[in-house]
């Protein structure tokens, strides 16, 4: 099978349908048996500022972008300005013919810090700020420019539909560019039509309009650019059932399958989509006829209420969770400490984003690992799980509840914006093996004639649990240090024992959770060089790993999924063998590297870091790794790709 690797980008103002375009494009590719990975970039803004979708099409699973754009569908002049540099020689730009005269330096949405850099670039190239000139310049390096008269095509559509005002159909520029794009790569338009229909399902009028726009644009491209792009997008045969979903969606589906029945949240990017997606499906199907299931999704007044309501709910026996990102998690910290002290099995899905503070609320970051591990005053056990891709988001969402209930502690499920807002094609998730483990729970029948103690001292530190409302199981919770009954105790001996009871649950986690649930290892066990990472860089690393081992480098990759408690023994064993350890992370200080050093004494030899708010691409990870492997690298490389 021929390799397919096609990188498409749609860019335009927020609110102009960039996401819709990407979803339709992705679906259309999916219907043709292709795999897709796509990353969404947008400002913290509702309408007007630049947003884009960087989409990669392949004949096999992909989970990272390249630096390349093979075809840029520019909805407006700004999209050209921002991305023209990414378009590869041989690639193409679809641009509005009427925009060629635009003076790029007067585009109001370009911020001063961008403009000053761009102005220097223009100067250095001897270019005016006319958009047309910029495009001419690109042609010199082999970029094709496809000038399309957006307005004229829209007029045709308006005429055909009997619509008087063009403004009403301006939003269809996105579908126009899709039509042109697929025309240029000669893809089967039927598949695209199907995608349009599914995307706009239940709105037949809109479907009709968009199909028309699609066809007109597709035809226009065929006719006006008969050569098309120097690439044809094939249709592949497959019988496999596949899904196309985002990290937000994967978590949502994982949670409800895992038995989550209360989800609390306060709106925040990029977490809220998960809760809203669950809410839209609050009544669930079940495998057992006559048995109902449903999730109560609660929008709370703030994140303090969110975590504490969820904690309260878990005490009744419901699986409950909350989802948030940095600012919200900061507000949950006191509640987390209460949950830790009271051995509450609450799950917190923590979507990292650019920080500190409000930071880059719609951009990517991986800055909160240390914070997730140490948040909350005092020492108490918790588990921190970090998913590396969208599929792991799904399974980890389930596992999080199992760990929480088995070990009776809060579980923080760390995700990041790059996972939350990227979408990817997968073979439908296998769920036959999924199990729900609720830990040691006592019902009414087990409580007759016993004096129940919620916090009884046990070997593992885990005490049998009773849900509120159970006859015979009355007990107490308190944020104060407590005795076995849950009553306040300030006695020093009890204190020492209770601290140890709680903390030794981490040893139980060490013992009882198999290592393959804690780390993934990729590549040769005896490789000379080992990459270490966590979270979303996984995709770019895996692809780079494949390429580099293909090139003969001795390289492997240890992905840490349970970042706390770190399986230090295993990690040390793996790393001790390595000549070079390469830490790849999306933060300033290399936090996982620090943790490994703290827990094992092993230092990271090289750091590949990035903190510009955009995810790592395979291109840059590959390049940076190669520099390391070639012995040329400084200890610290900082990646900067992405606009």
């Amino acid at each position: 099978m021929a390799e397919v690797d096609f990188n498409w980008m749609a860019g335009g103002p927020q609110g102009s349908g960039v996401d819709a375009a990407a979803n339709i494009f992705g679906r259309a590719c999916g219907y043709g048996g292709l795999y897709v990975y796509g990353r969404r970039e947008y400002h913290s803004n509702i309408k007007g500022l630049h947003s884009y979708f960087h989409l990669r099409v392949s004949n096999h699973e992909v989970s990272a972008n390249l630096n390349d754009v093979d075809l840029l569908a520019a909805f407006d002049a700004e999209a050209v300005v921002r991305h023209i540099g990414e378009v590869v020689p041989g690639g193409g730009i679809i641009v509005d013919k009427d925009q060629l005269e635009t003076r790029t330096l007067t585009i109001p949405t370009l911020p001063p810090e961008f403009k000053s850099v761009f102005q220097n670039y223009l100067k250095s190239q001897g270019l005016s700020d006319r958009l047309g000139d910029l495009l001419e310049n690109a042609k010199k390096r082999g970029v094709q420019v496809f000038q399309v008269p957006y307005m004229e095509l829209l007029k045709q559509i308006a005429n055909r539909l009997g619509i008087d005002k063009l403004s009403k159909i301006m939003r269809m520029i996105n579908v126009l560019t899709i039509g042109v794009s697929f025309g240029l790569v000669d893809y089967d338009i039927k598949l695209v039509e199907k995608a349009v229909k599914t995307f706009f399902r239940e709105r037949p009028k809109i479907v009709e309009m968009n199909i028309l726009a699609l066809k007109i644009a597709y035809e226009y491209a065929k006719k006006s650019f008969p050569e098309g792009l120097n690439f044809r997008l094939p249709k592949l045969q497959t019988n496999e059932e596949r899904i196309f979903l985002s990290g937000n969606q994967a978590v949502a589906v994982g949670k409800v399958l895992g038995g989550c029945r209360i989800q609390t949240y306060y709106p925040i990017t990029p977490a809220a989509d998960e809760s809203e997606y669950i809410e839209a499906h609050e009544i669930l199907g079940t495998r057992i006829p006559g048995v109902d299931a449903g999730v109560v999704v609660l929008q709370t007044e703030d994140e303090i209420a969110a975590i504490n309501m969820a904690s309260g709910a878990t005490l009744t026996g419901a699986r409950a969770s909350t989802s948030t990102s940095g600012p919200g998690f900061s507000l949950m910290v006191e509640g987390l400490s209460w949950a830790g002290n009271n051995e509450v099995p609450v799950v917190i899905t923590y979507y990292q984003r650019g920080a500190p503070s409000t930071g880059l609320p719609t951009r990517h970051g991986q800055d909160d690992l240390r914070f997730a591990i140490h948040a909350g005053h005092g020492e108490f056990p918790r588990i921190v799980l970090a998913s590396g891709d969208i599929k792991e988001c799904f399974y980890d969402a389930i596992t999080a509840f199992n760990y929480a209930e088995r070990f009776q502690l809060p579980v923080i499920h760390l995700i990041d914006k790059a996972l939350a807002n990227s979408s990817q094609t997968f073979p439908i998730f296998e769920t036959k093996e999924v199990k729900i483990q609720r830990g040691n729970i006592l019902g009414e029948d087990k409580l007759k004639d016993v004096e129940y103690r919620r916090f009884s001292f046990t070997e593992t530190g885990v005490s049998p649990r009773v849900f509120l409302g159970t006859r015979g199981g009355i007990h107490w919770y308190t944020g104060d240090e407590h005795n076995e009954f849950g009553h306040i105790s300030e006695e020093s001996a009890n204190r020492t024992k209770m601290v140890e009871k709680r903390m030794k649950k981490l040893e139980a986690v060490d013992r009882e959770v198999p290592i393959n649930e804690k780390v993934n290892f990729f590549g040769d066990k005896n490789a000379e060089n080992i990459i270490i990472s966590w979270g979303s860089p996984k995709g770019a690393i895996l692809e780079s790993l494949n390429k580099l081992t293909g090139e003969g480098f001795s390289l492997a990759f240890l992905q840490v999924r349970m970042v706390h408690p770190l399986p230090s023994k295993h990690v040390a064993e793996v790393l001790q063998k390595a000549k070079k350890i390469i830490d790849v992370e999306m933060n300033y200080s290399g936090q996982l590297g620090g943790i490994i050093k703290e827990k094992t004494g092993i230092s990271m030899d090289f750091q590949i870091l990035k903190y510009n708010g955009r995810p790592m691409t395979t291109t840059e990870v590959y390049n940076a790794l190669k520099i390391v492997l070639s012995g040329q690298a400084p200890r610290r490389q900082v990646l900067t790709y992405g606009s």
Partner: protein
Amino acid sequence: MVLRWTDFKTDVFVDWCPGCGNFGILVALQMALAELGLEPHRVVLVSGIGCSGKVPHFVNTYGIHTLHGRTLPFAQGIKIANPDLEVIAIGGDGDGLGIGVGHLVNAGRRNVDMTYLIHDNGVYGLTKGQASPTLQRGLKVKAIPKPNVNEAINPVMLAIAAGYTFVARAYAYDTKHLKETIKHAIQHKGLALVDILQPCPTYNDIHTKEWYAGEDRIDHETGKPIPRLYKLEEIGYDPVVHDVAEEFSKKVAAMEKAREWGDKIPIGIFYKNELVPTFHERIAKRIPFYLTLPPAKQIIHDEKGSPITDIMDFLEELKIT
């Protein structure tokens, strides 16, 4: 089985100061639970942090002693997850009207069918007597270095503005009246708040038991003190909203009463409105089986541990084949 209030006692030492109003509240609550015949394991007391926050440890029901100011979020989470539980939230005036007032206001918007008791002593007891939000401006209670610079909040007025459907005031040492008020609050369909005037003999040396009893004002004729407290029911005050149309006028009447302070202080039920749907009713409108099968009661896996949830609806939407 007939329950007695002593069935609701634990053997935890009650460590309040001698003469503390909390003793009265504790007993009244235990009597109310007993008289309503609530089985101890069906009751959940949820409290904040403060002297008042210790109540659950002294009561033989499920007890959750939470965080400062967070009694309402915990309580609502519990009640929403399992509506069969009788949930009573408890907290101090600092807890509920200072740090926790954001939850107090927002709980009013939900009207979850539960009870909220505020121990209103005008001070932060457990941190040694700072001014609480109900202490009037200019007053200097025992432990504060300078007179209070902040205006007081009127809890009854605030609760009404926030949408509470039952708002009452009671007095810690009128145990019988307090007990009855708590019973009404528990029986109310919707969110019920009881502002309990609670003498703190240790730190609030202004609003003392003696002050409430009027011992500073002796009736010249009888030679007896003229008590400051009087009961709304005794003046024929009708707090109930019988018809949506009278909602606002009842609210105004309640507020008018609520601001009386000083020489004549009303206690009793200020406002009661069962015409507003409870939060449970609102959820049940969306999830029809919610009341019979709330989150706490759903089965989530079969005997083999496999999830019973069917995610086909989701996958169908996400499918691209």
